[in-house]
């Protein structure tokens, strides 16, 4: 199997075998070699207020409970009872000191310790060593400026090394203002019957689709003011090590608020630009207008629409999307309110942009099953050989319309799937 995998992604020629989008065996390997080894986004620190606060999520298909302990340490634990495997917590969020499994009543503290076993004395004869049967911890949990990531591989490099140059770009979302960023309350969650990679690769580097897929939104006033989704104009697709990528529109000495959703937000962006420039420097201050990107494998964002999201894999042909709205913590309430409306009217499942994406990914997934269709690879050749190194911009830089980032994403995917390279190793 592993031998055959080498030929699925032809980085040099920009060709990808369609099998990788529907094959159950490849999906099983992805869970083991990608989702159980890469750093995965779990949540944001602003979801925690009091000790005992928790939320649940997934790492690949492993259910995870993320808790703020009595010591204010954030811990991630597999949300799976050690006795029979029931999920010990079925809630999305809440506050609890401990979690009691609804099957036989084993009880775990929010630090993961097994603290209660019914009939421990009478029928286990106190022979069960509770110390050994706590919830399985996610061995690594680290934050990047409020973004909480976990990793199921104890040997993985630190998060900052995994993110590498991507951290510099993530600052556009989480560090452009004093006080950082926070999430608005609630998440959008919905199911798309598509392979998770089609969504992740769209966000990592696909500006090309916007004018066509989202034509209706652009034509009917759901684009920001002056935003152009044609090939003209300066912008870049930038790929960095470990499969991450970002697309930025480059505003040279121009209007900082190009593409901003509303007059309130435009005014806000103009006002906060000097602060952003002071914090992030002149280069990144030119990247204020809409930006898209993905942290490999399944964490994506749209800066201009203020969404961050995770593409949870639920089988080779199913994604559960979890999306949030991320705002500058110090933005005034009326600006947060305007951003909230901008986001939910565009990039929630009912959003005027979002709704036109899913069919493309569903159809691309379904056609990947065809025995004959599969004999013909998908084309990832746009801008191949035209990537460059550009002073001041970490990573490999392609044009605004380029598949530079997708090629980088799949190259990393293939390296991990074939076991050729460990996480965090530099090229």
């Amino acid at each position: 199997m592993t031998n055959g995998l080498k030929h699925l992604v032809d980085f040099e020629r920009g060709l990808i075998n369609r099998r990788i989008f529907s094959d159950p065996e490849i999906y099983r390997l992805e869970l083991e070699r990608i989702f159980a080894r890469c750093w995965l986004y779990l949540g944001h620190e602003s979801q925690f207020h009091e000790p005992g606060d928790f939320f649940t999520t997934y790492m690949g298909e492993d259910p995870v409970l993320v808790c703020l302990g009595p010591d204010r340490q954030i811990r991630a634990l597999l949300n799976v009872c050690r006795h029979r495997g029931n999920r010990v917590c079925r809630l999305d969020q809440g506050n609890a000191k401990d979690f009691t499994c609804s099957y036989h009543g084993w009880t775990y503290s929010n630090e993961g310790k097994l603290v209660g076993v019914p009939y421990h004395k009478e029928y286990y004869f106190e022979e069960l060593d509770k110390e050994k049967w706590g919830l399985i911890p996610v061995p690594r949990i680290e934050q990047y400026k409020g973004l909480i990531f976990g990793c199921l591989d104890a040997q993985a490099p630190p998060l900052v090394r995994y993110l590498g140059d991507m951290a510099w770009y993530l600052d556009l979302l989480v560090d452009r203002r004093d006080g950082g960023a926070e999430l608005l309350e609630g998440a959008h969650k919905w199911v798309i019957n598509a392979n998770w990679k089609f969504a992740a690769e769209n966000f990592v580097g696909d500006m090309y689709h916007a004018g066509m897929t989202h034509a209706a939104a652009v034509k009917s006033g759901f684009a920001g003011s002056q935003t152009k989704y044609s090939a003209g104009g300066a912008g870049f697709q930038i790929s960095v090590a470990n499969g991450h990528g970002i697309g930025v529109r480059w505003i040279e000495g121009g209007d900082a608020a190009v593409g901003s959703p509303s007059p309130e937000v435009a005014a806000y962006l103009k006002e906060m630009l000097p602060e952003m420039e002071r914090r992030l420097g002149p280069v990144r201050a030119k990247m204020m207008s809409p930006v898209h990107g993905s942290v490999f494998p399944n964490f994506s964002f749209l800066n201009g629409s203020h969404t961050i999201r995770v593409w949870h894999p639920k089988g080779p042909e199913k994604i559960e999307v979890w999306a949030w709205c991320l705002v500058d913590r110090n933005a005034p309430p009326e600006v947060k309110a305007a951003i909230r409306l901008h986001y939910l009217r565009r990039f929630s499942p009912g959003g005027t942009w979002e709704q036109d994406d899913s069919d493309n990914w569903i159809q691309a997934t379904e056609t990947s099953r065809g025995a004959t269709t599969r004999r013909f690879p998908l084309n990832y050749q746009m801008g191949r050989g035209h990537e460059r190194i550009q002073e001041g911009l970490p990573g490999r830089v392609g044009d605004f319309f380029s598949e530079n980032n997708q090629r980088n994403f799949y190259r990393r995917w293939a390296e991990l799937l074939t076991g050729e390279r460990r996480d965090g190793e530099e090229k």
Partner: protein
Amino acid sequence: MSSAAARELRPVEDEVLREVERFLYWEARLLDERRFHDWLELFSDDAHYWMPVRRERSLSAGTAEFADESGLAFFDEDKESLRSRVQRLDTGMAWAEEPPSRTRHLVTNIEVFQGDSPSQVLVFANFQVYRTRLETKQDFFLGSREDTLRKESGSWKIARRKILIDQTVLSADNLSIFF
């Protein structure tokens, strides 16, 4: 949970109940027949159309099951944004609705109470919306609605619609239809 729960609800006369029922069935038919511009005219100019997200919370969390007005919502629209959504469909390039969904809006359990003013009524109803599209795609949306209807120049208008959807994770890939 409902804004009306705190005050005593007084049912309207049967005649008004029948009128409101007729109005809601008419509305459902307009949606199923894709007469979206006609549907828009059923809303008052100050209309608010809101579907908050729902979460898996413990029973004791009560109303916190739904995000509040400052939290996330599937829809939070005024008449202008609803109009933009309809105009978007008119472009012929709104691919999630091209070819269009086939929908069936079923409205049941209709209860009508006196509103805050003589010209207003408060309406509770359940809905089931079936949507099929593209050969075999099928979605079922169920939930309840809480509407404030207002009589304007002799016609009922929807002044406020709160849509409480039953799913926390939508099993549909989008909400390209109206409720």
